[in-house]
């Protein structure tokens, strides 16, 4: 996952798309925080075989009502 790091304008545009229009004071926070998160994401192994599963398991019985 090594797409180019978005610049400040792009980050704020992505944030707006997420419904986050922040007061100016928090914009710097967001840009700095996103840079950190993005660095971690870029370290994730990419190009996996299709069948590699995420760590969630769906268990149908856990949705049955309980006796309460």
């Amino acid at each position, binding site marked *: 996952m090594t797409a180019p790091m978005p610049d400040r304008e792009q980050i704020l545009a992505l944030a707006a798309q997420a419904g986050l229009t922040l007061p100016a004071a928090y914009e710097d926070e967001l840009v700095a925080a996103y840079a950190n998160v993005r660095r971690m994401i870029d370290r994730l192994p990419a190009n996996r075989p299709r069948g590699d599963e995420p760590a969630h398991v769906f268990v149908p019985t856990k949705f049955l*009502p309980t006796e309460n």
Partner: protein
Amino acid sequence: MDLHIAQPSAGTDDLATRGITELAPLLRDGKISPVAVTEACLDRISRYDGAVHAFIRVTADRALAAARSAEAEIAAGRYRGPFHGIPFALKDIIDVAGVPTTAHSRLLPADTPIAVSAPVTQQLEAAGGIMLGKLGTFEFALGGPSWDLPWPPPLNPWNTDFLPGGSSSGSGAAVAARFVPSAIGTDTGGSVRWPAAVCGIVGLKPTYGLLSRRGVQPNTFSLDHCGPMTRTVRDCALMLAACTGHDPLDPGSADVPLPDYAASLTGDVKGKRIGVVRNWYVPEATDEVVTAVDSAVEQLWALGAIVEEVTLPDIGDYSDCKTLISTCELFAIHAPDLRTRPQLFGAKLRQRVIGGAFVRAEDYLQAQRWRTELVRQMLALFLRYDALATAGWLSTADPASPEAADFFRTRRLVTMPFSLAGIPALVVPCGFGAHNLPISLQIAARPFAETTVLRIGDAYQQATDWHLRMPVLH
């Protein structure tokens, strides 16, 4: 003009048209040979599949060798059970050792044999089944019907101007056309039940985790199910018994005790409380579907079931929730190819997957929360009801026209709610509409209650004869 050409299969001596239930005692007692059954199927395929395109690859030599082995074993007294000597075929996303898997796509090498069979394949072969070949499918079980792929899309044997549904399109067509008495499809949003419904056969989406997903190209990890497709519920029970079982290497595989599915077919549904989710098919389904499904529900009532109408949220909710989850997982699955060789995708698969690039994790998680809410609400009905019933599909088959509207995009899927819940859901034929096209009833029950849906479906089939009709092929 009534194009309704119905032909009961009773009385024909074509072995290919007989089902598992009929064939099993004859095979067991040596009255017919597995080789004869396999040859009859292969012959029928060679005569008629040119017009139907159900198969991507017929593995005739392999099948005949397996049939000869089965013949020898049975003759030597080593009878493995009702599935011994029974031909079956597999949707071409399911791995078979020594045979390539194409997923009906340019993205997989068409000539590279797979090393290891999927557990589903292994189990059916261990039960003595004879694998005849790999069946056409939407590309990677999603992108279809498509005319821009290396193989044409399968067509509906009842009327080849129409499609057989999907994504297990070839599976539905092959069983309806009597090319094989049984097939395995996969179902994520309806892909076993839609083809079964519009091809007039029986299709079961079992409980999530009942059949192993290993060795099957993934669509959506938490929604993929393998499912048996046959001409009768009795046959379905026999096939199901041959391919269930815990697989510790599949993280979603359930470790539950397995009942005797065939023994559950007592024909008795008296007192079974069935909730009919009528708001899912009225007013949305076509008139002929509403009439046929309502009649089928009345038939259940006549058999002694207690039928009540229930209301659940609009099927659009289940579709939106599932599609959001799926799109994200599909994009993750196909991202490496989308980034490096997008031109190799069929247009429909690429279009359906690429949107996942932009969905945010928060939205994916909100969809998962929505899933929890919708599923809890649905499963609460099983405090009162043994089963739920609704239409198997809201119309009959779509026309086979590349220029026609992309039904998949705008369509609302009556199969989606039970996909999201992961509960067992069975479709059985319950009528015919215009153009000789089948109509279907859908029955669902609580997790791991396959015996309930099978019993109700079988009781219905004992009182009706839709499942005995056969398409005329040219």
